[in-house]
């Protein structure tokens, strides 16, 4: 090859390599999205199964029921969706995954609440409404606080919701809990608080049975 012919040929080959890179990336990212979909399908089946079991409550003991509810994978899937959101260019697919995940979380909450009521159990929940990095500069910190709380109190159920997600379920939650556009916002056992909250501040909002069970038991015994 002579002169600029070669420069053009090399340009085409380089573009070809870029196309191969793009194809490989799309292929692997689609596999990842399918993996999340599979997990979500599994969670959906788990919840449906629990709902069915709930309908058959009379035939099940509370012990059996509470053990069967909720897939453990619901917590890990959030990280995967968040990572996929940051690394893939396929925004539509990610948004769909987030919507499915949001609905699964709400279904999980409702079912857990009904079972708790029927079995006379106390549940502790935190709804966490977050926004994008631009809209909510303190959401990253708030995420760490909730991770720390979740690690500290395994019985605490934390549900995360993207405030800006275009989904009627989110709008309903915003309306029920009167969430304003001041993120992060938290709903701790039904009580709404806005702005960043530390671990200690959130612990004050949680019942003593959860945060200090030994002292509570001692007090009850002494009475």
């Amino acid at each position, binding site marked *: 090859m002579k002169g600029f012919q070669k420069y053009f040929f090399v340009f085409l080959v380089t573009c070809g390599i870029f196309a191969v*890179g793009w194809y490989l*990336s799309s292929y692997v990212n689609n596999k990842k999205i399918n993996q999340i979909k599979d997990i979500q399908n599994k969670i959906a089946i788990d919840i449906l199964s629990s709902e069915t079991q709930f309908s058959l409550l009379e035939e099940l003991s509370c012990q059996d029921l509470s053990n069967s509810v909720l897939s453990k994978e619901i917590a890990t899937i959030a990280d995967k969706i968040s990572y996929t959101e940051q690394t893939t260019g396929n925004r539509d697919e990610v948004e769909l995954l987030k919507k499915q995940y949001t609905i699964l979380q709400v279904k999980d909450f409702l079912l857990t609440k009904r079972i708790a009521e029927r079995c006379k159990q106390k549940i502790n929940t935190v709804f966490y409404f977050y926004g994008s990095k631009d809209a909510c500069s303190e959401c990253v910190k708030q995420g760490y*606080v909730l991770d720390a709380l979740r690690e500290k109190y395994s019985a605490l159920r934390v549900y995360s919701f993207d405030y800006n997600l275009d989904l009627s379920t989110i709008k309903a939650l915003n309306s029920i809990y009167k969430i304003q556009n001041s993120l992060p916002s938290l709903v701790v056992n039904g009580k709404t608080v806005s702005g960043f909250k530390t671990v200690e501040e959130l612990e004050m909002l949680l019942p003593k049975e959860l945060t200090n069970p030994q002292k509570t038991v001692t007090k009850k015994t002494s009475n």
Partner: protein
Amino acid sequence: MPFSEIAMYTIVFLALYVQVFFMVTFFERRKHLNKLHDEDLPVLTEFPTVAVIVPAWNEGTTVHGTIESLLNLDYPKDKLELIVVDDGSTDDTWQEMLRYKDHPQVRIFQKENGGKHTAVNFGIDNTKADFISCLDADSFVAPDALKRMINVFQKKPETMAVAPSLIVNKPKNILQYAQRVEYNMSTYNKRMLAYLGAIHVTPGPFSVYRKEVFQKIGKFRKAHNTEDQEIAYRMQEHHLKIDHCHTAYVFTSTPNTVKKLYKQRLRWIYGFINNTIDYRRLIFKTKYGNFSFFTLPSGIISIIAVCYLSFALLYNFILFIIKKITEISIKGFDLTFSPHFDLFFINTKTIFFISVILYSMVIFSIIVGTKLSKQSKAINWHIVPYLLIYSVIAPIWLLKAVWNTITKAGQPKWR
């Protein structure tokens, strides 16, 4: 797409373009390269006179070995003269040189210190040989190197200078092994640049020039202490052909500490930047061919790319540290080691796959370069320390060279 991603893709595209350019050249010339590589020692039709100039400044420990390696060259003794110039050394270089004062092939000179280019020019002024070469006093030549290089001149009369392959002499530590990998890769790059007629440096260790080169374009200049680069630029400007003889091996001593390597590379990069600025008139001019459209732009792009990547890396590292500090301040320091690893979290962006291809091409060039340099295949394992060491320290000398150029802080010294 954010600016940072556009910049990153542009840099990777250009880096890939350079590697593809080399690789296409390699496959175009593969047969010729194989023929050259398997060629037996050439039988020269005639032996022109050759002068090898050895500029020595405080080379008391190595000058003797350098002279001996030159005396062992497989070349008629009456056609080869050695001109050893002591450039105002303050050690025992001159005493070492005096051992050869009566040797029929060796002429020794002593002058005031004026820099390497003045010592070489002094040697040029004192010879009438047809071909002139110079050899740094820290390098040693393979006995058949000169014959092979003269053969190139005889086969291609239009060739005005020939560069050899540089091999790292007896590496002892990991830094020198890493440099050996780099030098082997340079052999591949230089061979490809020779095919493109676009060599931008005739290395100090044993490049051979026709006498006419100095008559036509003048002798060596100080040129930011990179006179071997500047003369190559000048030759390209005057359309004087530079070739590469990859089977002519010159063994050179390399820095054995990071500090020495830093100083050497700072000088090289500073020289490249400033020589390129001095010769900016050559860039993107059709009459200067691939040197103008490939060598110089790719060098400039690599400097801009490393500067950008260094700052981007530093910025991301600072963000990461801030994030970690925030996390630890909230969650506490977690000493428990979690071996859980999920393949899901491996980055599978387009840039990842292209980078893998790019690195594969770099490794290909190292392997071919190693083969061309006739080095042991075992050293290929040193690719890992090479990539690690150079990724960390190369941006430092490059940024410093850019900084010195911008602030006019002055050119780096030889040592």
